[in-house]
């Protein structure tokens, strides 16, 4: 019953840590919050969620929006029954994001999956090797990336 206040608490904390990197937030219901941030804030955001709120990284979803990628980090706060999705965008040309694997080891495979399927580079990933595609798959082709 207190989930709405949990969302408010979470949003306030993120707003104070991220400053102008925090953009806005929206909720569908008391179990789903979408927090929009600038991509530079993701590492601080993960630190707050994982270390202070005990959140668990469920997965990362990338969406091809033709000129940019939307990337959603779905964090689950089990005690509160809340999924907080941290949403950010990166331009399609030279798409890159900061890796969070050193803060949150569970992101290792997920970041590599996104890198392989969409061509979003995760800067600072400890083992950014080939992962999904076969060894002779062309370097600049990404299976889930739209062409054009």
């Amino acid at each position: 019953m207190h989930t709405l206040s949990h969302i408010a608490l979470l949003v306030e904390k993120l707003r104070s840590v991220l400053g102008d990197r925090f953009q806005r937030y929206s909720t569908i219901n008391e179990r789903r919050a979408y927090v929009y941030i600038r991509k530079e804030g993701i590492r601080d955001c993960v630190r707050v969620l994982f270390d202070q709120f005990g959140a668990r990284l469920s997965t990362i979803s990338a969406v091809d929006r033709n000129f940019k990628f939307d990337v959603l980090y779905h964090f689950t706060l089990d005690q509160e029954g809340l999924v907080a999705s941290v949403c950010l965008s990166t331009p399609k040309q030279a798409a890159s994001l900061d890796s969070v694997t050193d803060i949150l080891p569970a992101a290792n495979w997920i970041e590599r999956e996104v890198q392989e399927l969409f061509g979003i580079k995760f800067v600072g990933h400890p083992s950014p090797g080939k992962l999904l595609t076969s060894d002779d798959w062309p370097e600049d082709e990404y299976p889930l990336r739209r062409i054009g």
Partner: protein
Amino acid sequence: MSIEATLPIGPYHPALKEPEFFKLFLDGEKIVDVAIRLGYTHRGIEYLAQRKTYNEIPFLVERICGICSNVHPMCFCQAVEEAWGIQVPDRARYIRTIVGELERIHSHLLWAGVAAHIIGYDTLFMHFWKHREPVCEIFEVLTGNRQNYAMNCIGGVRRDIDPTKHKALILETLSQIRPSLVRLEKAVTEDPVVRARIENIGVLSKDQARKLCVVGPVARASGLAIDVRKDEPYAAYKEVGVDVKVLTEGDVLSRTLVRLLEALESIEIIRRALDAIPQGPIRLEPKQIVPGDGIGKVEAPRGEDIHYVRSNGTDIPERVKIRAPSYMNVPSIAPQIKGASLADASLIIAAVDPCFCCTERIAIVDVKTKRESSVDFESLARSWRRKNKHR
């Protein structure tokens, strides 16, 4: 710590039920390190899902996994229902709960049988599978299929549960298998030979479990009290209630016990759900495709399954993202297996109940970064291709 030998297991190996490749680095009998390579059952389901209509996708995602085949369509439908703002009829929520719990019983018994087989106790294996069989027969009567039940659709379920005939069959079968499950649980915990084989093996600490974000029985055996059914009740779990089983040792014995206790709890959940199931329609016809985001979460037998759907108002979703529970659990094999004896390797691998079909709707390689020089998957793959060039 020196590496004396490397031992490949798989991708096709008599001990493995699905294709995967484990490269064990050994110092004598002791496992120093492991490198995991998956990617032999990749089917591109996310790509396909983004080219099909909403009505077709439940049938597609049902084929992600052959064991927990109810989980993925239920999860997908919940995500779409959230995005479109649909309230599922009460009776459909109860039917989803009953089918989901029946599936948990058969999945946990299947796993327990495989684990018994791995430790060389084939009598126990046959007993577990003997009692799994009646559950599959219930499915055949309820849905027409032993697997791939096709029960879920967006807005509800496709088949009703007959309040007299089906209910009587389910209750009678459950009351028959319950005493056997209690007996089999004793066979695991009280048999000194079985206990010696699985106790203190493959330990995953609570801290490691949290860092790797493992889910399901693997997390609950390591002391993390997480269960989607309790934390974010979907279907009818809010009304029916769930007693979450949590143990703290984090070894193979704990994982076994968590699963067996959960199978017993599932029987109670089904009984409560059958008692409380309300009358009414079982599905609701969606009137409009609404643009928006939806997240579906289901506690699969192996842990939290999550689907993310972005609807753009057309009859084909813009994005379907699927993350099966084994995707989070398989990386936890590495910390568990280091320092273990070679003879325990297959048991430790099996004990996370890895579902490679689920994990490999995308494919994965985990290479231990600290010793990159000794890991040469690419050359292995190259030499395999060189050998098979003529094919």
